[in-house]
């Protein structure tokens, strides 16, 4: 099996505040990885480094065998972040227009063609929001909006879907449907990296789990993970760290 993401000995610091230290892990093609850890443990930073949105201070990252910084096949990557829910709150843009953006990297400067529009229709259908396609994105509920973002990634035919706390502010019912959808996409062979606050949800859905708190505490299949004390160690080190530096951590 080939690797979707290879992280090798990556360290990163914001000025003198260390965020990641000597992190190495490999995400196989088709893996469903849950990335967990306490607040300010560097999960988001690690994900952004994995995607080439940020460069590590030391160490190397490869996306599908290419250094992440030089990786140009943007169409293979999909990203749904906690901030996605904030985007476009006042902007007039319909659900269909958002999903179309998934085709933009394919199209470049040429207009979208019939195949592009078919891919958009299929993606809308796949996540079950076809009937909402002419609605303004800001008028959707949180769950519907996240499905639209997933549809955008599907339309772009992404091989790797990265999600950073995608379900913040989503009700329990939509949450279950959302994770069922992720499971289906993973069954289709899409690699998924998921950051999620709710560890129970991650344990239910992810195949493998990486537990992070500046350092990587464990990366193994979910059932094995539950038998280790990695979680406890990661979170107890967070408490020690938190007591020593109450203002530390946080996101960029």
């Amino acid at each position, binding site marked *: 099996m080939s690797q979707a993401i290879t992280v090798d000995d990556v360290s990163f610091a914001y000025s003198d505040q260390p965020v990641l230290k000597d992190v190495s892990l490999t995400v196989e093609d088709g893996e469903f990885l849950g990335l967990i850890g306490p607040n300010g443990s560097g999960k988001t930073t690690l994900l952004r480094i994995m995607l080439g949105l940020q460069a590590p201070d030391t160490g190397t990252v490869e996306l599908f065998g290419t250094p992440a910084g030089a990786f140009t096949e943007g169409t293979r990557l999909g990203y749904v972040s906690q*901030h996605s829910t904030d985007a476009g709150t*006042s902007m007039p843009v319909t659900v269909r227009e958002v999903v179309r953006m998934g085709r933009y990297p394919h199209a470049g400067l040429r207009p979208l063609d019939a195949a592009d529009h078919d891919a958009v229709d299929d993606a809308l259908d796949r996540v079950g929001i076809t009937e909402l396609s002419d609605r303004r994105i800001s008028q959707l509920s949180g769950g519907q909006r996240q499905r639209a973002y997933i549809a955008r990634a599907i339309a772009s035919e992404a091989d790797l879907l990265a999600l950073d706390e995608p379900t913040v502010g989503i009700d329990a019912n939509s949450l279950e449907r959302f994770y069922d959808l992720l499971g289906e996409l993973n069954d289709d062979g899409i690699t998924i990296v998921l950051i999620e606050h709710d560890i129970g949800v991650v344990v239910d859905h992810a195949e493998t789990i990486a537990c992070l708190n500046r350092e990587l505490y464990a990366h193994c299949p979910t059932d094995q993970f539950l038998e280790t004390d990695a979680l406890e160690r990661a979170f107890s080190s967070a408490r020690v760290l938190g007591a020593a530096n109450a203002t530390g951590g946080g996101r960029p």
Partner: protein
Amino acid sequence: MTTGAIGSRRGPSALLVGVPLVLLAFGGFIIWVFPVLYDAFWGATCSVADTWLVCSGFLQRGFTAGVMIGITAPIVGVYLVNRQMALIGEALAHTAFGGVAIGLFVSAAVEQVDHPLLFALVAAAVAALGMQYLTVNTDGHADIPIAIMLTGGFAVGIAVISYGVVFSATVESYLFGDILFVPFENVQLMVGLTLIVAATVAVTHKQLLFITFDREAARLARINVWFYDTLLIVLTALVVVAAMQILGAILVAGMLVIPVAAAMQLTDSFTRSIFLSVVLGQVAILGGIFLSYAWNIATGAMIIIVAIVVYLGVTAGRISRS
């Protein structure tokens, strides 16, 4: 490696080949074809409705220039407003005014160099790139470079004018706009700028929209965000300089923002909001010019007032529906 260097080079390289070719075609059109079309159109209009409103040369030029601004300003404005960069046009207009002041000063000294708008174009373009550089390379809020450019450009303009010998009427025409003051070369310049802006946006609309809506996702899709940001701000500089003759440096930003603000309330679709902005822009321009002559009020001011009345009407209509 910095993240700014990541990005597809395909878009920019295609542009580098396409733009010069298109520019050549535009140049030919504007110099030889456009004057013929212009005369034919206004000749026909004048023979149909024989009033001073369409038969006087200065109003023909004013209307033509106004219609061009009513197209370009809202098109660029749609992206700016949705990026919360509404005031960038104001800052560029003020630096363009600084450029005009320098141009007038130079033309007072060297009579052959009488092209203040060219100086304005250079000043606005430099300011646009400078602002882009400051935004990327400093830590402050995005509105700090805008405030600095806005006041700085104006300060330079006033300093040069106070030092040099410039007729105050000329200065006023650039500050407040003057529809009687648009020579035919400037109408040609405006048609050229309009074609450039419209064609560029037509080709790069997808990238501009993607970045406007979701900057991170656009970067992830390996779209060259820096390139398209710079392109947008340079387009804004072109529009601002073109619009300055009619609206004046102080009022230019209104045309970038107000029609867009109204259109955003009328539709849920981004593409439709572009077309609606242009329609409302035309309403403001044409209505403003008519009323300014009917009531003998400054044209630039009347255009902005009509735009705001339209905006308030749309807002009131929306509130009463909901």
